[in-house]
């Protein structure tokens, strides 16, 4: 129920406002979409066309942007010659692996935290949430050194572990909120009915399943989009799409077409996922503080 549902009287002022809002929205749409559009179009332009600009101030020649013959050679190049199939797979493995570990371990822990009272609980929370907020760069320093010593650099396992540093506390935190919303009485009823504690837990799983599903996807989103961990710890064998894309930027003769194509490949799946979990985005991105 929005505040706009309240009765609105049309005054001259409100007409001006309506016109203004239309202009503002149009503007903001342009502002939001333009970089994405340029990226996509550029991924289909060959090198010469990509660098074509009208002369300064010649607004009438903006159409130059659309003047090109589309080519898919950059995409082809990426997958066939530059190994992007591997990178794509690496992204899936690292993001998926970290999401699964985080959600499985995290949901068990979150459930216990939700149902069990003990001293020091809020201190535990604080520790958990601070691990989620730590600057990636700061965590990177020790992790790099430690993983190097354990030969985990450049391995899938190492990268999955690194991603888990922020996905696991995230999972615990958010999922605990979910379990808090399921009344304990349902599990109690189940136990009185004759189930064991674990069976009672299974009885409420259908109630939290959609939320858990959404957060698996959110974990994947965060891990997929990560650059620092992936480039420093995942370099070599476990390289994912973001660092791979960045590496396409060579000092001379930058292949912008391929870079834009790589950008599209990295971004498109995440946009689709974002559409899927639209409902849970606010909760996920605000660590549960805001519930839609």
């Amino acid at each position, binding site marked *: 129920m929005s505040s706009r549902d309240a009765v609105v009287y049309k005054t001259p002022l409100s007409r001006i406002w309506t016109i203004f809002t239309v202009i503002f929205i149009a503007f903001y749409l342009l502002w939001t979409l333009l970089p994405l559009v340029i990226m996509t179009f550029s991924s289909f332009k060959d090198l010469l066309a990509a660098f074509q600009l009208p002369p300064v101030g010649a607004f009438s020649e903006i159409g130059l942007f659309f003047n090109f013959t589309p080519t898919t050679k950059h995409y082809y190049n990426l997958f066939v010659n530059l190994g992007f199939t591997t990178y794509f797979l690496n992204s899936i493995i690292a993001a998926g692996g970290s999401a699964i570990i985080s959600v499985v371990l995290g949901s*068990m822990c979150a459930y216990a935290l939700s149902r069990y009272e003990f001293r020091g609980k809020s201190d535990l929370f604080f520790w958990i949430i601070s691990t989620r907020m730590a600057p990636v760069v700061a965590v990177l320093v020790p992790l790099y050194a430690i993983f190097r010593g354990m030969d985990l650099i450049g391995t899938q396992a190492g990268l999955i572990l690194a991603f888990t540093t922020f996905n696991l506390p995230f999972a615990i935190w958010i999922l605990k909120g979910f379990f808090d919303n399921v009344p304990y009485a349902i599990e109690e009823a189940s136990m009185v009915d004759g189930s064991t504690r674990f069976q009672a837990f299974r009885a409420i799983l259908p109630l939290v399943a959609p939320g858990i599903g959404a957060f698996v996807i959110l974990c994947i989103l965060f891990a997929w989009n990560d650059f620092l961990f992936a480039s420093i710890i995942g370099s070599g064998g476990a390289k994912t799409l973001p660092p791979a894309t960045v590496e396409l930027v060579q000092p001379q003769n930058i292949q912008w077409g391929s870079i834009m194509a790589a950008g599209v490949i990295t971004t498109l799946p995440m946009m689709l996922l974002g559409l899927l979990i639209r409902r849970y985005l606010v909760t996920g991105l605000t660590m549960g503080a805001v519930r839609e």
Partner: protein
Amino acid sequence: MVPTGSGSARPTTHNGEHYVDGARVIEYLPSSLNALPSSRYYLWLMAPALILLAAITLYPFFWLIWMSLQNVGAGPETEFVGFKNYIRLWADDKFWTGWVLLFKYSFFCLLFEITIGVFLAVVLNGHRFENILITIFLMPMMMAPAIAGLVWYYLFNSTFGWYHWLFQSLGILGETSIIGSTETAMAGIVIVDIWQWTPLITLITLAGMKRVPRDQLEANMVDGASAVRNFISITLPNIYPFLLIAIMLRFMDNFRFIDVIMRLTGGGPAEVTKVLPVYLFDVSFVFFKLGRGSAIALTLLIVTIIFGKLLVKVFENPASKRIDQGN
């Protein structure tokens, strides 16, 4: 011992039976207690996650402390130097500039993001196409910051960047790219942050606006308030906790993510965008001075922890709960 209502007189107290307000009370304690139930079940559930978390967070934390007291030389050996790294930091200009730039960066990002974000929320709230529009506006948030940095680098480029062409055509800029000049580089990285994260502010604000109690608005209207008045005196105070969360989250995120800055400027030109985490990256992974890097990392973490404590206070009283309880 317990009276069963047979009607016999009992005007005195005996055996610890006291009365308060006409009702029987018990002041004594139980003679013995039953053994407590084992909580093994819950502990087993929590253990795997907590052990893993401790391994990948606590251990590195202590490693950082230890390492910050070392000097990392050319070879693999490290030499214990006590607080020397910290003393050097104190005198290090780039360290302090790093903090200043970090706060400056966060401030400008937040200033624009809140203004534009809240305004967008006001415009969209109750709009016919609200859902579709907000879904489109969310798309920049789905993009990896590193990729966003690359795309905007492409856009800002002084030779072939369309946005640079636009700036030039409008007379805002000369030949140098926005990220190529020391005066405008900060503006460049702020623009990208605004592009990516303003929708988050809008989303949060919308969530808050939808929870504003209708009756407060209606009562105010009956009292004669205009829409603007309504917004200022009713809506704003109600969404204030949401905005607070948004501000704190974005502030913390600016500490965490340097992907965009690395792509756009790398901290330059002439280090005008070298916010502290970028400096940390340089020290640790470019110059490999892990000892000093650890010291810097620790200071960053400590500030994070302080803000974290603040954030937890806000989280334990979620904005939605507070608004439902009438703030």
